[in-house]
């Protein structure tokens, strides 16, 4: 067992899923045996800025930061926490990409805008305001990825390289057992009318699945439940914009119409409904879209 590490968990806001995912780790007890806990704040109210200020600079070996950041107050807290920690993990989709909350940046809605402005800012991924050393993706992070983080970060003698993402560098498709038929994309289907065939690739059936552009390591559990991947683990390595990448993939699957008008391609791609909620469900705040600048309501 390496020297005891001083660790901390901080969830600025959010649904509580990230803290539960860590609590449910089978390696939790081992991790805690070998660590001192600086604090375990599952919501922002558990820890004041004064209390954080009193901690030694770089006194925390590893800080796991969950939840998105938005206004000045949460950015200031994130910066303060960064000063106190040698290493910071962006824990879960909200810290990694802004998460579902990030959709508020780009969907129309005066109420949303009011709320964001009152709080002093739009949703941002943690890496937009502080330097992030590691990423644990997922909403909430799936058990396999949590285990990998715990083992590599807390139980191993060597610390992982800065920049490690505790997920597969391959896409979700690598873990998906569905049969791939290479069908062209003739129409976009939605599965509320009838569930898809559970054995065939969803894209082959015309359902939008973000598996090809999303980091794997989750075991493709959503696909097993006959749901498409919605992209919670963020883009695969090297992909800048997850939503843009899936739209590009879809476009490449549409058969050419044979004329210069591109009528068929347009018909198929224009039929995608809620394109932002589909392609950027978790990653809008980290995307090239940034945020909506006028309301459009």
């Amino acid at each position, binding site marked *: 067992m390496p020297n005891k590490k001083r660790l901390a968990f901080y969830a600025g806001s959010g649904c509580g899923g990230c803290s*539960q995912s860590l609590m*449910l780790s089978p390696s939790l007890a081992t991790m805690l045996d070998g660590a001192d806990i600086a604090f375990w704040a599952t919501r922002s109210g558990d820890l004041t800025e004064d209390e954080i200020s009193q901690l030694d600079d770089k006194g925390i070996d590893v800080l796991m930061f969950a939840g998105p950041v938005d206004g000045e107050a949460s950015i200031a807290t994130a910066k303060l926490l960064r000063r106190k920690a040698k290493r910071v993990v962006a824990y879960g989709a909200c810290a990694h990409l802004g998460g579902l909350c990030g959709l508020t940046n780009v969907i129309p809605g005066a109420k949303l805008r009011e709320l964001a402005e009152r709080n002093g800012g739009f949703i941002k991924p943690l890496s937009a305001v502080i330097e992030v050393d590691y990423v644990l993706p997922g909403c909430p992070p799936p058990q396999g990825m949590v285990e990998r983080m715990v083992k590599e970060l807390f139980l191993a003698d060597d610390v992982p390289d800065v920049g490690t993402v505790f997920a597969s560098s391959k896409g979700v498709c690598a873990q998906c057992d569905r049969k791939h038929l290479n069908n062209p994309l003739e129409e976009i289907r939605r599965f509320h009318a009838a569930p898809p065939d559970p054995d065939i690739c969803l894209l082959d059936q015309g359902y939008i699945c973000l598996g090809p552009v999303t980091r794997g390591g989750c075991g493709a559990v959503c696909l097993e439940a006959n749901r498409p991947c919605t992209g919670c683990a963020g883009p695969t390595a090297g992909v800048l914009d997850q939503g843009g990448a899936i739209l590009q993939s879809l476009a490449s699957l549409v058969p050419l119409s044979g004329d210069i008008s591109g009528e068929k391609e347009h018909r198929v791609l224009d039929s995608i*409904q809620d394109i932002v909620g589909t392609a950027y469900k978790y990653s809008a705040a980290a995307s090239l879209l940034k945020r909506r600048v006028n309301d459009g309501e």
Partner: protein
Amino acid sequence: MMASNVICLLPHLDRVELVNGGELVASVSVPQAREAFSSYMRGRLAEDVPLYVQRIDAHCAVSQHLAAVRALDACYNASPPKGAIAIRRALAYAGVYYHHLEQLFFSRSSGDGGIAGLVRTDDELAAHDVLQALRRARDVVEILGGRGLTPERGIPGGVTVGIADEQLSRARDIASDLLGVALRSEEGFRAGGARWVEEQELSVPAYSLATVNDDGEASLCDGMLRIVDPKGSEVITGDASQVLPMMMEWKEDAPLRVGPLARLNAASGASTEQARELQKHLFDALGTSPIHRVAAGNWAMVIELVEAAELLSSALAGLAAGDSELHASLDEPGEGVGAIEGARGTLIHRYLLDAEGIVQEAQIVSPDSLMEADVNAALSSLIAESGPEVTDDTIERIVNTIGSYQPAYVPSAPFSLRIVRRDADGRVSQEWRRT
């Protein structure tokens, strides 16, 4: 502070306000967030709704998922096949079990002794066993819902896919173990927490809202909604769309209560054999139903842990692997209301869809909002009883009182809290802090 992340609606209660030396004016209220939630959901695909809403509160993700799915059934006028209903029910029971176990052992702060504060633990029921049970309950949620903390299987009209045979067998094995942990927890509670509950005299007469089955017994999933008055007389029984208007314009002389204590009061009894037997201990100690002692909600929750495990075992026994009739045809989309008896209390979702199945309006009536007046009434009584001085004991009682309602806004324990007293001009005159 309410962040702009309206999908994660957990309002962070960090302050209880007192005015004029005792009159409580507010605990928590987030009307802007509720309006913003509808704004957020507008334009989303109907079939994605259950994925969004379960991220509102991961402690009750199953309840949120299923309430959305039931509302969407109504939007499409769909009657899910029996096989789909059976999977959803089993999932609901697993969700209640997970929630209650987590609340009792990891999120509660009342009383003394034991890792839960309420359940006396010994070598037979160590923290390790409880964590193991929590993980296994999560595994059952994953088997039934397709994903551990945030289920995926529910869609309007049914479920996406059936359960494989070996997975079903595994879930049945786990369920039997979960019942054992529940029974040991209940025993541990009677050895420790029951006396603590008996000592807590704070009592708030309230109307009780719960879901009941055809026999009038408490349901931990679906059924008819029933409201009884503080004396236990029925006020209304109906489906969600019939009862919702009364709830939304509450004009009665006492607050409305939801959750385990309300279920105890509104129903004729627990729906399973062992839980019914265990309720006798509670009634022997605290008197007959209706019971308005706030702390009794903790006891009722422990009994429901057993009930949820019994229901889960029974529901899993009735599930058939490989059932192919799991989805009903859908009508044209429209408006729909759906309710689920969630772990924290009755949870109602309403959606209005356009002709393409895109959300136009969304509304969630959560146990937190329903219990707000009840929590405030309890805190006001407590402050009135405690006198003008706020002592450490008062603060602990405030924390325990709020905790007895298991609201979503205090997911962690022990939770920090500021108590602020304002003078007649609204200025903060005194402040206390509990961390």
